[in-house]
């Protein structure tokens, strides 16, 4: 299934599918149909594998006990429950597998992971490899630097060493900006967000280019939250985050889309958002204080899996 840019088409398709799913469920249950793809695998093995990140605060990260927690992680647990109900399983074992920015797409594609819960930007390019369910967050690319360095715009970075996480859309954007604007940057790829932030913290790089929400949470959970500033200039429009699943698996996607749409529209979805963005979160009890933006409210009221930033 390929939704491309057309939001209305995507929406109506999703609505049709969701309602079709609802009817099917009401009438006969999914078990009556011939199962295929991921659903078949889950039914046969009694297992679903969730991929989590180790430092995508507050989406998917390790808490004080090194257990995965987070906003997207909770959404995936809800999806797993919906899958269990849909397949009428008495027991569904949720297996966890760590992924990084660089490994998440191949691991979804090669079957290691069924759902990737983190902070993965949904874009048209990635839809050639994987599928995304409804958007759970919107964020723009900016950079964080030490306040003392007094950096604020993209031009300010000229000639500096910057870091970004390998395998992200952000590293691609900064590379493109570097060429297009002749910034003369040295761009280091880091293995994960924690390592990238560390490069700024230890003075190895002047700035870390990433989704602003992640930068805010990394700075907030650092040792000296007051020492960092996020650039005012952004490298991109706010882009949608989605939970990843395998491509060309319409029945599984339909179940996941339905589960997420139901969750986002419910008060439970709103409460989930508030738990992770407006209240103290583990491990250190920091509060990100990021109430729902208007586009985000819209994305929850009418869930969409469109990759187009203009759709939100």
């Amino acid at each position: 299934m390929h939704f491309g840019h057309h939001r209305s088409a995507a929406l109506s398709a999703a609505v049709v599918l969701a309602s079709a799913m609802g009817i099917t469920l009401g009438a006969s249950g999914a078990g009556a149909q011939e199962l295929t793809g991921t659903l078949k695998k889950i039914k046969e093995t009694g297992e679903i594998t969730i991929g989590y990140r180790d430092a995508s605060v507050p989406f998917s990260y390790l808490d004080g006990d090194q257990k995965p927690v987070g906003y997207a992680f909770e959404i995936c647990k809800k999806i797993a429950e919906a899958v269990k109900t849909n397949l009428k399983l008495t027991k569904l074992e949720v297996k966890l597998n760590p992924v990084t920015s660089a490994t998440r797409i191949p691991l979804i594609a090669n079957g290691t992971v069924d759902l990737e819960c983190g902070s993965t930007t949904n874009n048209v390019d990635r839809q050639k490899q994987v599928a995304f369910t409804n958007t759970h967050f919107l964020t723009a690319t900016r950079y964080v630097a030490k306040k003392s360095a007094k950096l604020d715009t993209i031009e300010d970075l000229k000639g500096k060493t910057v870091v970004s996480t390998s395998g992200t859309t952000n590293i691609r954007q900064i590379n493109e900006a570097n060429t297009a604007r002749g910034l003369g940057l040295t761009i280091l790829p880091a293995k994960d967000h924690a390592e990238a932030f560390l490069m700024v913290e230890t003075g190895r790089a002047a700035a870390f280019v990433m989704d602003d929400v992640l930068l805010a949470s990394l700075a907030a959970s650092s040792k000296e939250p007051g020492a960092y500033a996020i650039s005012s200039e952004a490298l991109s429009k706010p882009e949608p985050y989605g939970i990843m699943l395998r491509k060309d698996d319409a029945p599984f996607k339909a179940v996941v889309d339905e589960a997420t749409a139901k969750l986002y529209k419910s008060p439970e979805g709103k409460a989930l958002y508030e738990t992770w963005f407006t209240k103290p979160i583990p491990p250190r009890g920091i509060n990100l204080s990021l109430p729902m933006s208007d586009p985000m409210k819209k994305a929850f009221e009418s869930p969409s899996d469109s990759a187009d930033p203009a759709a939100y």
Partner: protein
Amino acid sequence: MFTDFDFGVVLSSLPYLFGTGMVFTLTLTALAASGGIILGTIIAMMRLSGITALALPAKIYVNFMRSLPLVLVIFWFYFLVPYIGQWMTGASRPISVGAFTSALVTFTLFEAAFFSEIMRAGIQAIPKGQTAAAQAIGLTYGQTMRTVILPQAFRNMLPLLLTQTIVLFQDTSLVYVISLTDFLGAASKVAQRDGRLVEMYLFAAAVYLVICITASTLVRRLQRRVAIIR
């Protein structure tokens, strides 16, 4: 920023470092070493079989593995193992393989190339007369290998096999690149979380140093005993 050393952070993370990290490292080392030695012995026997159809693939395999950086091999297998699983079981989709299994397969196959070279030297060092004698008393090839050649080769080469296992123990730290939580992975996760790089990395280095020096001292002692038997 790091002027004040705080080894308290090491102390409080000890259960995680050893309970999760070191257990992973040791399990991976032990399983990969056992698998690697068995597979390595088979490869060594193929190379010494005198049958080109067996010897050539074995030789290519060993030289191939020894020419590649382990980091690249780890990436390869991390993405490839599910497809290999699919191919081997004839399943309709790639087999879901956990990160640990993937790492285990990688290290077993990679280290087998190195173990096989040790076993090959071990088998070749056994005097030809023994094979001849075994055949003269009517033992089959399998019996000769199992009861005469391999036990001696294995015993003679034990110190080298163990030394290679210590190298393997150090190499397992490279699973860091695929974000698995081995001992170093655990240490670096704590280091990054608490911003205590100096303490955590120095501590990790010290732990590896103590374990490896102790192990190689034991191997040297064993070597002396094996030498006497010979």
